């Protein structure tokens, strides 16, 4: 089959297809009213939800650090429970990192959003979507990191407090525990904590890749194809 035959086959086929699917003004209006969300719209919505959730979380962390924690312990435990001093720098450091990353993320996202439009040149559009997705992925991993840090800090603090209460109940001191007992406690703690963190991380990562992994690969391939055009252009 020659290309001119291909053209005539296309003309016949496309005109029949257009006639078959032709819509009236009302149908088009109806489709616009019931518009579904495109990928970029959905990501945009998810990012906005993520921003709000992270914002609420940071406010909670701040309130918790300032007075909520002390207040709850006072009400629920009825005795003075000391927050492990060794965890304080880790707590402050992780919160600071989260706030900085969060602000960086918000600024970056607003910048991308401002310059994004579907009628851009294809390459710019693909780069825009890729950047949006990458930013989304960064935010996703930020949320995962917060969750994991939270698990570590809470778990360690919990073990420490539990141990302290236990030893207090038998009029003992943590400092009097033998090395082998401490090693067993650390071992059991790690045996629970590490698989818990690994499973949480891998499930979340798998979920993200399942949703967007193939799409990102396709975007990269298309971009690569367009970049080849630039390279070949220089040869002419």
């Amino acid at each position, binding site marked *: *089959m020659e*290309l001119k*035959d*291909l*053209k*005539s*086959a*296309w*003309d*016949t*086929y*496309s005109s*029949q*297809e*257009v006639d*078959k*699917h*032709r*819509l*009236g*003004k009302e149908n*088009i*209006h109806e*489709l*616009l009213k*019931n*518009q*579904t969300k*495109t*990928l970029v719209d959905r990501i945009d919505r998810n990012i906005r939800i993520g921003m709000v959730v992270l914002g609420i979380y940071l406010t909670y962390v701040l309130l918790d650090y300032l007075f909520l924690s002390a207040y709850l312990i006072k009400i629920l435990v009825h005795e003075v429970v000391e927050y492990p001093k060794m965890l304080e720098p880790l707590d402050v450091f992780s919160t600071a990192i989260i706030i900085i990353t969060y602000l960086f993320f918000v600024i970056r996202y607003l910048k991308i959003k401002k310059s994004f*439009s*579907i*009628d*851009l*040149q*294809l*390459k*710019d*559009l*693909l780069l825009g*979507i890729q950047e949006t997705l990458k930013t989304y992925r960064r935010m996703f991993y930020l949320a995962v990191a917060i969750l994991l840090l939270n698990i570590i800090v809470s778990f360690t603090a919990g073990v420490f407090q539990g141990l302290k209460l236990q030893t207090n109940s038998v009029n003992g001191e943590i400092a009097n525990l033998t090395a082998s007992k401490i090693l067993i406690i650390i071992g059991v703690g790690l045996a629970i904590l590490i698989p818990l963190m690994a499973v949480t991380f891998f499930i979340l990562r798998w979920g993200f890749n399942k949703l967007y992994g*193939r*799409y990102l690969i*396709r*975007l990269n*391939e*298309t971009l690569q*194809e*367009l970049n080849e*055009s630039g390279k*070949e*252009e220089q040869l*002419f």
Partner: protein
Amino acid sequence: MEKEFLQIITENQGIIHKVCSIYCDLEEDRRDLFQEILVQLWKSYPSFRSESKFSTWMYRVALNTAITSFKKDKRQPDKTGVSYENMQLAEELYDSGVEDQIKMLNQAVSNLTGIEKSIILLFLEDKKYEEIAEITGITQNYVRVKMNRIKKKLKLLMNQEE
């Protein structure tokens, strides 16, 4: 503005249907893509300036949407590239020679990449290299190079099928 938009889209809807025909194998995908393109056209309509022809702008938005559309892996496309609906249409409307050519065309086109599909569609629609370059955002030289490759690829694919 909405009235004006509806009028202009109703008149030019052929462009969207053709883009959907070349990018979708299944009727359901086709409907989704049609709606997605429509929504994108509506959203970016306020930014349309008459610097380029309306059809050029419409092709660009439609092709950009098709190339970047996000499909979940819920439906498996027909690997032959010929949809059941198309087969039925062919049986109803064409003689066997044209039907074979259409099958071959669909099969060959389904093996092209997203960008190649956009270039071949514009070529089949008799667009000049200059306009293809304007719509796709790649240079005229590369459109020529790419077009030659696509022609070779299509010939090869169609010869294999014959």
